[in-house]
């Protein structure tokens, strides 16, 4: 049961990572990076590590995406 879930998570992480590298729109790439962190947090829960899952969900998926979007906003708004 957990092996099937791990295979599904692996497939989702692979597709999202390739989207994050090769998509033309930068915003979609940043959101895909956040989603990779979210699926990695579920994988940590399957591997019996709840502390690490909490840390990855709050820091790797939440705060990292926020900082990327702040920087993109400053670059976009300094053009006018």
């Amino acid at each position: 049961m957990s092996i099937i879930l791990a295979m599904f998570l692996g497939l989702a992480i692979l597709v999202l990572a390739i989207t994050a590298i090769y998509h033309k729109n930068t915003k979609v790439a940043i959101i895909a990076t956040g989603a990779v962190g979210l699926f990695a947090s579920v994988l940590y829960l399957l591997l019996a590590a709840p502390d690490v899952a909490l840390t990855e969900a709050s820091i790797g998926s939440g705060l990292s995406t926020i900082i990327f979007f702040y920087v993109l906003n400053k670059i976009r708004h300094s053009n006018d």
Partner: protein
Amino acid sequence: MAHYLTLEFLAMLIGFMLIVIGLWGMITQKNLIKIVIGFSLFDTGLNIVIVSMAYIKNSTAPIIDKAVDVSQAASKVADPVPQALVLTSIVIGLGVTALMLAYVLRMYREKKSLDINSYTDLKW
């Protein structure tokens, strides 16, 4: 073939795939922000590899409460040392990503371009 279908082997395979994709993105992309995204994927993949080495077959989380008694803690619990190392590593990865993005902002202020081929000051 049967010993390749365990949970820790699959998790380590996912981690190594993320490392290869992140490294490929850092080498071949031209946009500065895509390079930082590749570094963040590399960091996530590395943490998955380290946590997958801490899993013991049929084990549970290393917390002692009603499910795991004090006397049988040593036989039912996963390894707590790599989990402590990964806790540190995730926070440091965020700090380094924030530092790289601050450098991207300063570079953009100098030349107004996000393409890495236009920064040729250090080329021979």
